[in-house]
């Protein structure tokens, strides 16, 4: 069974009252990178995932999780 990476980044960012640009500045990437991660277009590296978790002060598994692919 194949899996894909789901994330709650948008929800957790909103909870912190941050814009995409503000979160991007905190982790040192462009706003577009945050945008593509939130929209599941781009799967971030472990380093970026940990930086995002640190910036949002949550464990990394609270942001990212595995979910079965749609067709499975």
């Amino acid at each position: 069974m194949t899996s894909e990476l789901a994330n709650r980044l948008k929800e957790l960012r909103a909870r912190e009252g941050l814009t995409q640009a503000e979160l991007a500045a905190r982790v040192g990437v462009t706003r577009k990178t945050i945008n593509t991660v939130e929209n599941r277009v781009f799967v971030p590296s472990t380093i970026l995932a940990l930086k995002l978790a640190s910036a949002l002060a949550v464990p990394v598994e609270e942001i990212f999780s595995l979910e079965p692919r749609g067709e499975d």
Partner: protein
Amino acid sequence: MEDQVSKLIRQRDRLLTLAAVSFLFWQGAQLAMDIAQEGGWEFGPFELVIHLCLLAGALGWAGASFLFLLYASRVQRSKAQSVIQDELFCHNQRIAIRFGFMAIIAATALLLAADLLVDFSATIALRALLIIGITAQLSRFLILGRDDLEDES
């Protein structure tokens, strides 16, 4: 900072567009001239247009190369290089390079098939591959950068 980063990314994309279009005009016109020369054809009234495309393309490519040098120093001064070249940039760059490579392979196969039907020189084939390889790669990178999805909540 984000404004500055966005501005630098927009400038880079504009420069890449200029480079891709210029290269296509410059080498495309040169390719058309090579084909005409080998086939013994004449452009007639379009000769001037072909020469203008060649000149405009070459000047555009030279201009884009010079502007890239200025852009690189501007990026270095802004200390935003690591942000601009973040992992999404590297990811898109890898996809674009792979796309360019696949386009070259496909074009090579087509040229090999075409060689069975018509005779053409290695210069024509190599120039065609160069045009396809460079423009495919630059265009793919620009298209990937333009895909903006659901924005701020």
